[in-house]
């Protein structure tokens, strides 16, 4: 009986011993990390791998709301779960990152010990690229195009159709909109700060200076061209009457009442054009007085080329509506 009692006691002791915690005392914490990059762009991920010893890891990223120095004023850190933490900064600046490694006794979590690892990251904002530049002129939005690294071209009609009426487009007083990836980037037009509510005379060319938060500067030019129109046009004695399209501002329709006796397959086209403008048929230049086949499916365009830069062009698509 005594032996049995001894066996039972020994068994109970074994059970109790198995529940004992070998690591009753807290480990010594070691805060160490590896970080992929300390010189970041805005919104670029900073990836931190915790490589030290800790029961719990918290990282203060140093930006608004997460400043370790202000932890008593409700600033908070981020708990790192499995040693991997990623974060990005929405604004440029230098930020002090603090990693807190904590160990504690497993018995009620007492005897806290901490170690910290600190480093700075710099976040730069170097955006000087204009993604879109446009002007909203009811009932249209006119998007400028970048023809090379510097020159933006905005193409406007002289008139636009709104509610079935042709209305003059007042290009001397219109607003512009810039689409730039960074809020910190500043834009200057003709050396004056750009404002969305300012009006600009779009009949003139303007210098555009884009300044990134980092101090980088990129200069552009904005040119406006009007879709070219004939000063006059006639086929034989018939004068062309211009009508515009509400949907396509570059599409001009000239309607002719063709008199009898005109050969439709060799109709004489007489026209005058503004400076630097050419009439093209299927890509080939036509001169006033040339004869055209009105029944052929030719593509007619008017091409305006800037005298300053041959890349700066505006093309009107033409439709000749010939009635007999």
């Amino acid at each position: 009986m005594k032996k049995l009692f001894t066996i039972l006691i020994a068994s109970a002791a074994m059970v109790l011993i198995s529940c004992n915690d070998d690591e009753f005392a807290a480990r010594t914490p070691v805060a160490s990390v590896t970080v992929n990059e300390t010189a970041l762009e805005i919104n670029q991920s900073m990836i931190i791998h915790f490589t030290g010893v800790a029961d719990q890891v918290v990282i203060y990223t140093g930006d608004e709301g997460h400043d370790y120095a202000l932890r008593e004023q409700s600033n908070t850190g981020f708990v790192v779960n499995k040693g991997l933490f990623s974060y990005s900064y929405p604004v440029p600046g230098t930020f002090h990152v603090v990693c807190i490694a904590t160990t504690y006794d497993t018995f009620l979590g007492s005897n806290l010990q901490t170690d910290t690892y600190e480093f700075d990251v710099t976040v730069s904002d170097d955006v000087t690229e204009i993604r879109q530049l446009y002007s909203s002129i009811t009932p249209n939005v006119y998007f400028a195009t970048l023809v090379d690294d510097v020159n933006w071209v905005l193409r406007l009609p002289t008139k636009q159709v709104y509610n079935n009426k042709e209305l003059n487009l007042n290009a001397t007083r219109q607003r512009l909109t810039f689409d730039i990836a960074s809020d910190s980037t500043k834009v200057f037009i003709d050396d004056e700060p750009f404002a969305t509510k300012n009006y600009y005379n779009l009949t003139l060319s303007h210098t555009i200076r884009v300044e990134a938060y980092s101090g980088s500067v990129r200069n552009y030019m904005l040119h406006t061209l009007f879709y070219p129109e004939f000063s006059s046009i006639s086929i034989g004695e018939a004068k062309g009457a211009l009508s515009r399209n509400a949907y396509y501002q570059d599409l001009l329709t000239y309607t002719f009442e063709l008199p009898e006796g005109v050969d439709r397959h060799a109709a004489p086209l007489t026209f005058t054009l503004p400076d630097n403008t050419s009439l093209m048929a299927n890509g080939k230049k036509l001169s006033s007085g040339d004869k055209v086949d009105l029944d052929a499916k030719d593509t007619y365009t008017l091409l305006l080329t800037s005298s300053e830069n041959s890349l700066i062009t505006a093309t009107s698509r033409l439709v000749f509506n010939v009635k007999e």
Partner: protein
Amino acid sequence: MKKILFSLSLACVLLLTATSCEDFLDKEITGNATDENYYDTQYKMQSALDAVYDVLQSDSYNDQEWRFGEALADNIIGTDEGLSSQMGQLVNFRFNTSNTIILSRWTVNYRGIHRANQVIANIHRVNISTTQYSAYQGVRYILGQAKFLRALYYFNLVKTFGGVPIRPEEESVEGLVVPRSSLEECYAYIEKDLREAAILLPTGYSATTDVGKATKGAAVALLMKVIMYQTTPGVPSEKWQQLKRMGEYFVGGAPMTLGEMLQYDGSENWEQLRQRLWFKPQSLNTESDPYETADTKLEPLAGVYSLEYKDYYGAPLNNGSKWAYVYQWYGDGEFCKGSIFEVVFNESADGTGGDTNEGAGIEFFDVGTVKMFATDEILTSIFGTDVRRDFCIHHQGNTPDGEIWQGGEGRYVSLKWYTPRKDKPKYAGDNGRNFRLLRYVDVVLMYAEALNECDEREKALDMLNMCKAQVNSINNSTKLYVAGGYGYIRDQIWQERRMEFAFEWDRYFDLVRQHRAAKVIKTYGANRANRRGYYFREGVNELFPIPQTEIDVSNGVVEQNPGY
């Protein structure tokens, strides 16, 4: 005596130890369903499909739908926008990768995918005891619905997180960690499901008990949306052309073949494809059975749905009164002419008549449960003077059936969120009406947008004004949208989308796919006292972070989105 007792004890211990090795657990199970034998009939497969639909009814699904689709955007003010809560952090774009709401959206959609995969992976196990064409058709419809639902769940994930892991249809312990697929791969996967669903599913179901199941219209409508989300406004692309083509088929009535819908290129043997998709094998066909080829025309969808405010049977809703518009969302308007797919919440949604309705997620119109509201200023920005503004009621305003809403001074709620008294659920915590997930007006407006992007602006305006003319029937207005250039037509379509789909949990994702979420939401936030939305980070917050737990459990195989 001591010895005997000791010996007995020892014997007992030894006996117990020895017998514990007995293999009595490894007996053949009889009478129980297992994953090996469960999916052998159409009816069991239907039961598995019910489980896929079931996720749509759950609170955990719907709570994430309104949170992400509506609460993040500029149409509403939330009642939980403080930074101390997970919800507040989410809507302020001040969350971290461990946000539990983001995790919930991830989890619940994968739950639906897992269940859909069960159906799709096991459909080949179905045994049918007849060679009747209708028997194959029945299984085909189940497969089509599962593919539609899987695509829907993946689409939810992709528009939230970008490229996500595509789970294998048959899971194994060895393959639990799946890396993310690219966005393009995910969209291709979703499109394939929907294109196949579009040829598998019927335009409608004859049995009234089947109404509410996904149809061909649902598959094509969702496919159009998926295609649209792969486009960039102002940038011509093949996807815009595809969207226009789908619109021509759905709205314009242009014919489309099975081969065109599937983008069939001949790389898979047609007969094998037919049999994979449960078309009746050619060898078993009788003379009276149809044989579908790649050139067979799809059933037309034009005329199946309508912009008019008419019920399932074609009768004017609410006797054609002004309130007909909002009755589209009520019990009277279930499966109405303008509704393409609904999450069926109504009591007995499972067909058993029992209280298995789970969805309390959309029931937040009552006092004390309002999670979002609009203000006079917000309503003006959405509707201007449009008559649809009248379908938002103010504190102490009357619902169409005479209830007075007491929601607090300055607050407006949409009557789209309201459940009329006669539709109120029998059981607490249930929904008394269905949620409209895809509507015909969405299809028409997507078509209009594609036309505009493809330089067919006159037609685009026609489509847009077709929608506006229907709205004008509410108050006999004659105001229509007007002709203009590309940007003007586009902006008018977007404005119409904002008005028509306001408070339907789509606004946020619509802004993101329009590539203007940052501009709109930051502007909205700049004008709010709590600046909710102002911290939206362009180029980052268009996608949400992969939940940190997924990164952790995969040991980094599942990679985080840029900027997090």
